[in-house]
């Protein structure tokens, strides 16, 4: 005869209400798992998608994603000359907020060498990769651009030739791929008004008694074009058989640059930019789980106290302790399992509505269930202790 179920059956409504309440809490615990995983996934997404053998960046910098790094564009020729390097390709990225597809949007512009393809989109959901040196773009779906659509960005109009689904900036913003020179222009070139103002300022500082004549200043200004030939990193594809660490050492020693493999780059991000928010989320996850267990403990304790007289009667009749322990523990586990199930159903049906990626994994789900069940058992201990301490003589009391 299952006593736990029979007791619950008598207060079914209240039990269900409790299960739904704790279930909502479990939904938050599970969403927290997903938020944590999503945060790490998005944080590393750009590195994982770009995935070169080596990242070459400004010396002493942990760039280009964890930290800013600026190199002259021509450095990729020097890197290409190092033995063991098959391809060396310039790479630039820059988060912007621009007016695109009828709305001001945050996104990250990626500029890459469209002919080597290194640093470009990995998998396209639709269309084709960029094949021309100018005015073509591959956009993330979330930018709401359609295939073949023309859109204005900076000084020019671009055509969407491909769409991606995967890959975001570390902040979870969509990516927009352009050819390197296009990207450099969008990122570095000020608008025409700003160029004119800049020239006027320089002109006025040059044309002074004893300095330059207006004619000389004009000549000088015409040479003072704005330099857009800057990049953030050089991406390297190694020749077959080349040792990553050896090539990296050569680049460091000969070119005075910093070099990282992709796993090192991931490590830098993980321990750098992602570290503190990640820890914060992790801590929150643990706290929520503890809160769940404490609430379950309180509910189980209340359930036990409500039937303390019945427990005394059972003891008086001669029930062994294990029957009483089982009654309480079973209710605790039932409460935990049902609440978890409700939470699981809620979050698995709503996670796609969250503003940022909520990445639910079976591993996290199972670990949480395991911890919750262990917590449920621990939660029942207080009730069990109280029940075992109850004297059977309590049953004879008149109240």
């Amino acid at each position, binding site marked *: 005869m299952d006593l736990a179920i029979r007791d619950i059956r008598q207060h079914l409504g209240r039990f269900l209400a409790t299960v739904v309440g704790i279930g909502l809490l479990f939904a938050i615990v599970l969403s927290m798992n997903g938020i944590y995983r999503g945060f790490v996934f998005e944080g590393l997404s750009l590195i994982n998608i770009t995935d070169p053998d080596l990242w070459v960046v400004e010396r002493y910098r942990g760039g280009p994603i964890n930290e800013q790094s600026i190199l002259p564009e021509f450095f990729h020729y020097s890197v290409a000359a190092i033995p063991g390097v098959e391809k060396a390709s310039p790479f630039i990225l820059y988060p912007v907020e621009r007016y695109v597809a009828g709305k001001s949007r945050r996104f990250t512009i990626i500029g890459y060498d469209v002919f080597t393809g290194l640093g470009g989109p990995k998998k396209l959901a639709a269309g084709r990769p960029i094949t021309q040196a100018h005015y073509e773009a591959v956009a993330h779906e979330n930018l709401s651009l359609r295939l073949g659509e023309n859109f204005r960005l900076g000084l020019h109009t671009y055509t969407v030739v491909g769409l991606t689904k995967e890959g975001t900036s570390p902040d979870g913003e969509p990516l927009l791929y352009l050819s390197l020179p296009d990207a450099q222009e969008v990122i570095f070139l000020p608008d025409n008004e700003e160029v004119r103002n800049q020239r006027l300022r320089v002109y006025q500082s040059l044309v002074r008694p004893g300095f330059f004549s207006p004619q000389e200043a004009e000549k000088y200004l015409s040479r003072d074009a704005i330099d857009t030939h800057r990049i953030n990193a050089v991406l390297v594809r190694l020749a077959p058989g080349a040792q990553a660490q050896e090539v990296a050492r050569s680049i460091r020693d000969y070119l005075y640059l910093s070099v990282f493999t992709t796993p090192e780059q991931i490590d830098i991000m993980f321990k750098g930019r992602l570290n503190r928010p990640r820890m914060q989320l992790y801590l929150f996850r643990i706290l929520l789980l503890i809160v769940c267990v404490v609430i379950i403990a309180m509910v189980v304790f209340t359930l036990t106290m409500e039937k303390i007289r019945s427990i005394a009667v059972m003891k008086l009749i*001669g029930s062994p302790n294990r029957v009483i322990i089982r009654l309480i523990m079973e209710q605790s586990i039932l409460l935990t399992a049902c609440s978890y199930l409700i939470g699981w159903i809620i979050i698995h049906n709503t996670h796609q509505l969250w503003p940022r990626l909520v990445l639910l994994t079976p591993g996290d789900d199972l670990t949480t269930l395991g911890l919750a069940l262990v917590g449920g058992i621990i939660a029942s201990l207080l009730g069990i202790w109280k029940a075992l301490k109850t004297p059977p003589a309590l049953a004879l009391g008149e109240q």
Partner: protein
Amino acid sequence: MAAVLKVENLKKTYGSGRLAVEALKGIDLTVNAGDLVALLGPSGSGKTTLLLCVSLILEPTAGKISLDGETLFDHGWQNVDIRQVRLQKIGFIFQARNLIPFLTAMENVILPLDLMGVERAEAVRRARELLEYMEISERADYLPALMSGGEQQRVAIARALAGSPKLVLADEPTGALDSVRGMKVMELLKSIAREKQTAVICVTHDERMIEGFDSIFRLKDGQIMLDT
């Protein structure tokens, strides 16, 4: 006739030092199979204490208790499984709220059988039989909250009898009932002593209830005054 219960020079002192209460001061008592015994006495005389000692819930301070030929206590617990003895040899009925509120009448009677490891079908059969015997079988599937006090007490008696105990202990079983229902419960207790040869010790305040009992013990200040 074989003695079901034998109590010799039983003493129980609650607490110690200046706060010590001598609730039982040397009780001698023998109850045979089929005996119907009434235990009378004013409040505080030690009736409940005696029942609790006999049912092995309270540890006596001194003395000897034997049940069904087995010595359970002799200046200390003997090497027996007290819970098993209680489960198999003793049935309990107390004043009120005997029943487990989340179990139906039937399930309440099945519970001790279940704990004894009696097979389900057999337990159901025996429980139904007992409920019929207690004339309460039409309430078999009711929860206690839906039954009257008298009906609850009859289910409680059925439960006390479920394991065919040697000894039934009843602590004021009619205390919460009006006299008509109280009489009915007493009649049932009498009939189980007669028909099932179960020894019954029944604590009561009410002199009118003890008509037809085999022996009557009057307790006062922890001592038996007089037995008839």
